């Protein structure tokens, strides 16, 4: 048997049938559902008189439209009627088809990509789908996870399978040791800065090397989350002892004999030593600096000590034009130092950085400090009710509130501003989310992607700064 990559192994284990032209049916072990991309899929099932193939593989939770302020009114606290109906519909569909839903008010409700791993609903060796491009997140535990469209959501509901063609294999290897103050978010931003937003097109990316071996599972979730920003629909990290430890004892994790059998199977979920990758990219982890995005694409990213590019110095006319357009939108002049960019808004949240470790890390910077007067709004939005509960048990909420942050309820929030949390036009935001597209956080809003630590430091300074100047010795 020839050597296989992790992706090859996961693919082979889920192959139901394959046509001569390579079109394949792969079996899906878990489908996560949220309110925006699922209603038409359920409607389609109803119209065709079809039932879900396996109800127990589906798990639903509303996240995109959920308000993060007062939730005591339940669904009625959603003011926009169209948003409210989407959330209500998810609940009605879940009840009609017998699918488990963590509804608003349930402590387990949150952003699907935070909830899945947290519940053990996404496990090593599974295939996971969701009508959401950031489904790649779940690859951090060694699952093959795809973001899919609404027609495909319906297809998976009805058949438990996805029609797919196999992707190519890509390895991103980051060796060495990260400097203090440099986080998983900085690693993935540095990778995207290097390979570009189309660098992973058509590939499943495996993240390998010492940096990822040393990284916590939550850190790996942050990295895989942004595989899509590097153009790849799939991001993966090999299973190791940390993965097993992370998964153990979670509500949906196997128990007893099943657990032992599962662990034996999972320990094989890594690429064989001589496996072939179609593309390999190498980075030295020890030289990665804290990152800040300056433009309107995640690849427009710089070291915190850098200066914004000058289109006049770019020889390629198309690139120069792209830089100019981004500068215009962001309201920045060429050669501006990153550290001179104000942070009028701060957002710590989203499926990239809203887990407990993210809040612990930001709290370390905020402890005993206050956000700058020039900061108009600083939001801390946990990824799930359970993250929020844990943070409060550790007293982190107090640190945020005392520093001047608003401590909110879980949801997607200002990551895409489908609820009431919107970044106003012209304002710069230090954001721990994953997309800095025009209008992403609100029409005309100017997003700068950073780590939670960097966002906290920017909140304190009122402009972007090197978080390493804010971390006292020790640690």
């Amino acid at each position, binding site marked *: 048997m020839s050597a296989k990559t992790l992706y090859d192994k996961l693919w082979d284990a889920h192959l*139901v049938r394959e046509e001569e032209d390579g079109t394949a049916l792969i079996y899906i072990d878990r489908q996560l559902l949220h309110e925006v991309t699922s*209603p*038409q899929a359920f409607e*389609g099932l109803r119209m065709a008189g079809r039932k879900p193939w396996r109800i*127990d593989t589906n798990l639903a939770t509303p996240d995109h439209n959920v308000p993060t302020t007062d939730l005591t009114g339940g669904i009625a606290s959603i003011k926009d009627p169209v948003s409210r109906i*989407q959330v209500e519909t998810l609940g009605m569909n879940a009840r009609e088809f017998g699918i488990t839903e963590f509804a608003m008010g349930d402590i387990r409700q949150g952003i699907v990509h935070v909830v899945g791993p947290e519940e053990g609903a996404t496990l090593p060796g*599974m295939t996971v789908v969701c009508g959401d491009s950031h489904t790649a997140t779940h690859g951090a535990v060694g699952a093959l996870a795809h973001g899919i469209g609404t*027609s495909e959501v319906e297809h998976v509901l009805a058949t438990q399978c996805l*029609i797919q063609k196999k992707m190519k294999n890509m390895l991103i290897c980051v060796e060495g040791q990260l400097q203090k103050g440099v986080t998983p978010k900085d690693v993935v931003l540095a990778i995207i800065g290097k390979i570009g937003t189309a660098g992973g097109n058509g590939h499943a990316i495996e993240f390998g090397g010492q940096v990822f071996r040393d990284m916590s599972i939550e850190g790996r979730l942050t990295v895989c989350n942004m595989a899509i920003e590097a153009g790849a629909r799939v991001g993966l990290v090999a299973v190791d002892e940390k993965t097993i430890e992370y998964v153990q004892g979670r509500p949906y994790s196997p128990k007893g004999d099943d657990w032992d059998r599962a662990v034996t199977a999972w320990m094989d979920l890594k690429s064989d030593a001589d496996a072939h990758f179609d593309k390999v990219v190498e980075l030295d982890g020890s030289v990665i600096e804290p990152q800040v995005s300056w433009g309107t694409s995640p690849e427009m990213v710089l070291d915190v000590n850098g200066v914004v590019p000058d289109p006049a110095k770019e020889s390629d006319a198309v690139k120069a034009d792209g830089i100019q357009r981004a500068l215009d939108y962001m309201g920045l002049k060429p050669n501006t130092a990153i550290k001179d960019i104000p942070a009028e808004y701060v957002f710590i949240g989203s499926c990239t950085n809203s887990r407990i470790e993210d809040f612990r890390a930001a709290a370390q910077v905020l402890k005993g400090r206050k956000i700058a007067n020039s900061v108009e709004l600083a939001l801390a939005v946990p990824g799930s009710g359970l993250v929020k509960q844990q943070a409060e048990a550790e007293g982190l909420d107090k640190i945020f509130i005392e520093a001047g942050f608003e401590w909110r309820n879980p949801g997607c929030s200002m990551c895409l501003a489908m609820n009431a949390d919107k970044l106003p036009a012209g304002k710069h935001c230090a954001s721990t989310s994953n997309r800095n597209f025009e209008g992403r956080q609100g029409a005309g809003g100017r997003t700068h992607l950073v780590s939670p630590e960097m966002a906290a430091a920017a909140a304190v300074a009122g402009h972007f700064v090197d978080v390493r100047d804010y971390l006292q010795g020790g640690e």
Partner: protein
Amino acid sequence: MDKIVKMTALVAPMDRANVDTDAIIPKQFLKSIKRTGFGPNLFDEWRYEDVGQPDSDNSNRPLRKDFVLNQSRYQGAKVLLARENFGCGSSREHAPWALKDYGFDVVIAPSFADIFFNNCFKNGIMPLVLDEAIVDGLFQAVFAQEGYVLTVDLESQKIIKPSGEEIPFEIDAFRRHCLLNGLDDIGLTLGHQSDIKAYEAKRRQEAPWLFSDA
């Protein structure tokens, strides 16, 4: 999905080129939770005097009398006659959903935008490509004669005019098979049920923890 084999239906003319999906169904309707119900908002901006919202009561909205689909002679049309590059722009699947919901089963045009073309098949609409001159002739015939109908026969791949004159058309064999048998992707995959079940049986042995109902 409904089978499309042979149908005779009234034809409505959409006499402009490059009709984009934003015109077919404007973006404010994408927040909808349904795949059905887009019919009243098909061509919303061209059809109504005011700007429609997802929660508008469409029955009370002022109509643009001159818009083709508002004319009494085209009520009940199931065949839409269009110009080149029909369905360009955003990939929204809401566009074929709106056409189907309104009642169109067939769109005839000299050319279609790619994604829209594929989305039609996924949603039981037959997009037929005919020679520009032939489409032109059909437009003239539709304008000239109230109640102009066409028969579309997918089996024999022919359009038959009221005069009995036949126009052959090309269609991908696989797509034709799907339409004739009312198969969508889901229908096709369900055709492989035994493979899926065999996979599940094997997988249940290897990885029982993935089957919580075990």
